[in-house]
């Protein structure tokens, strides 16, 4: 029994270490990044779009706007597609089809993001360039690629939410004479709505945090986009692009970019957690 206790303690310590590492990462990012924010001032950091770190300008407004727009674009594509897919798989499709479709969709989540980015560069970007104009590397390309990348997240969580709706609801609705679609639309979807919103928020978190694929297809230009065909740079791409060489204030500025990203993702995840709790 002495041994039992010992193992228990070791496991507890191991479990604790994962939380500790999260705390350490948080502290580290803030320690590295905050001095710069204080140095340049929050206004010059968040409300300026002049980013020239080697010359002492650290405005990330353009990147914040780009991150938001890219994510929004991804949601416009991903949410209807993902939701439709989830409804079919949870409510309509025959078991055999579900048996094939669900693992396929889960496979989609397993494809590394660099592969999405590569496909985007090779196939999507030239299409946009030839048919819509501009350099091809654009807000639109990034949104489309991310829209596909968030599908697994949105679909699997939405399916869980739909399946969790008690069958009694469906039976009751059909007994009252509603068709299957009416049942889904008026009964099942409202009953599952908090779960579905969670799915969408987590999908947003995935989209805003994605880096590799976005670097490859977004073009990474520094100005605020005026059209969906303009190249954009997101917060994540900014860090990944420049960290390799950055020293001094430049490096701190990248960590400060990380703080902004950290706060955005924390807000998204917290709201997702709160929404699921309320159910």
């Amino acid at each position, binding site marked *: 029994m002495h041994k039992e206790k010992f193992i228990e303690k070791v496991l507890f310590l191991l479990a604790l270490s994962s939380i500790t590492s999260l705390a350490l990462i948080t502290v580290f990012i803030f320690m590295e990044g905050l001095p710069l924010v204080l140095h340049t001032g929050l206004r010059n950091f968040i409300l300026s779009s002049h980013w020239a*770190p080697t010359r002492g300008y650290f405005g990330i407004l353009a990147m914040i706007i780009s991150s938001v727009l890219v994510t929004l674009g991804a949601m416009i594509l991903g949410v209807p597609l993902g939701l439709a897919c989830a409804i079919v798989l949870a409510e309509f499709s025959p078991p055999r089809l579900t048996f094939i479709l669900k693992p396929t969709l889960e496979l989609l989540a397993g494809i590394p993001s660099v592969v999405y980015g590569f496909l985007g560069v090779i196939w999507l970007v030239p299409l946009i360039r030839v048919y819509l104009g501009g350099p091809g590397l654009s807000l639109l390309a990034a949104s489309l690629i991310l829209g596909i990348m968030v599908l697994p997240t949105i679909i699997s969580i939405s399916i869980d939410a739909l399946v969790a709706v008690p069958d009694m609801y469906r039976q009751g609705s059909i007994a009252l004479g509603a068709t299957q679609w009416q049942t889904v639309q008026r009964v099942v979807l409202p009953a599952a709505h908090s779960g579905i919103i969670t799915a969408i928020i987590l999908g947003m978190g995935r989209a805003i945090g994605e880096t590799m694929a976005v670097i490859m297809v977004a073009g990474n230009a520094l100005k605020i986009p005026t059209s969906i065909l303009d190249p954009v740079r997101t917060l994540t791409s900014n860090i990944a692009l*420049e960290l390799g060489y950055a020293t001094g204030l430049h490096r701190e500025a990248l960590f400060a970019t990380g703080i902004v990203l950290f706060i955005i993702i924390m807000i998204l995840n917290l709201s997702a957690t709160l929404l699921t709790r309320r159910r």
Partner: protein
Amino acid sequence: MQLWEHHAVWRGLGRGQPVKLLISRQSAGNNGVFLKFLVVLTVCLAILSCQAKKSEYPPLTIAGSTSVEPFAEKLAEVFMKEHPGVLINVQGGGSSAGIYACRQGACQLGASSRELVESEKELIEIPIAWDGIAIIVHPSNPLKNLTLKELRQIFLGALKNWQDLGWGPQAIHVITREEGSGTRETFEHIVMEKKEITPGALVQDSNGSVREIVAADPYALGYISVGLVDDRVKALSIDGVAPTPENIQSKRYQLARRFLLVSRSEPTGLAKKFIDFILSPPGQRLLTLEGLVAVR
């Protein structure tokens, strides 16, 4: 534990020795498995870390330019293969950082992709290769030559349309490198006259991806190291001078720079052997194959 000993550990893991041991321990499966697991792991690490080879020379450290770094790494790799047991560490950090570290004695050799300034002249400089920066466009682009002024205007965002250069009415898709890149630094130094590159320019983080985009986009214009130009892109002449090896060496092509190694005193020991190797015909041939222009 020193850096190279870590490598030894991982090489050992790659050979599968400790992994096998661990598996056999696990299958024994009892309550003390964790303890034994840790003991075995520690012993493995200890044994493997002692296997690092001792050399007659102390390790050589080269620090500096990130543009020189890949070439220096390649050279070091070949050199270490030919001389088993010696160790050469190649680090980045930037030309100025490398020169500074060398002056302070923090590393034996500094790598620089810019010329030494007056206050650094006390250092011994050893040019190892020439590199040029080529301005590239799509092969279908009829343009053959740009003046340095036009190039500056394009990268300032003042000259936006191919029409102004005598081609179709299409926007120029300007591609630059990320802030902090050595190639960008040289480009800005030679072309931009301390002015900023337009924020509308696309930014790519390697020579390769700049070339990839220019190869695919008829209206793109970017800059890469001359050695990486291939037949999928077209290098433009600047002020009528083409980026050929001869023009780069004679400095007639303006976007040219030397790669230097610098040292505080006449290099001795491993540093001297390594420099001799770089300047020898095989070393220079290697650099030429990697896309640079030989100094000898």
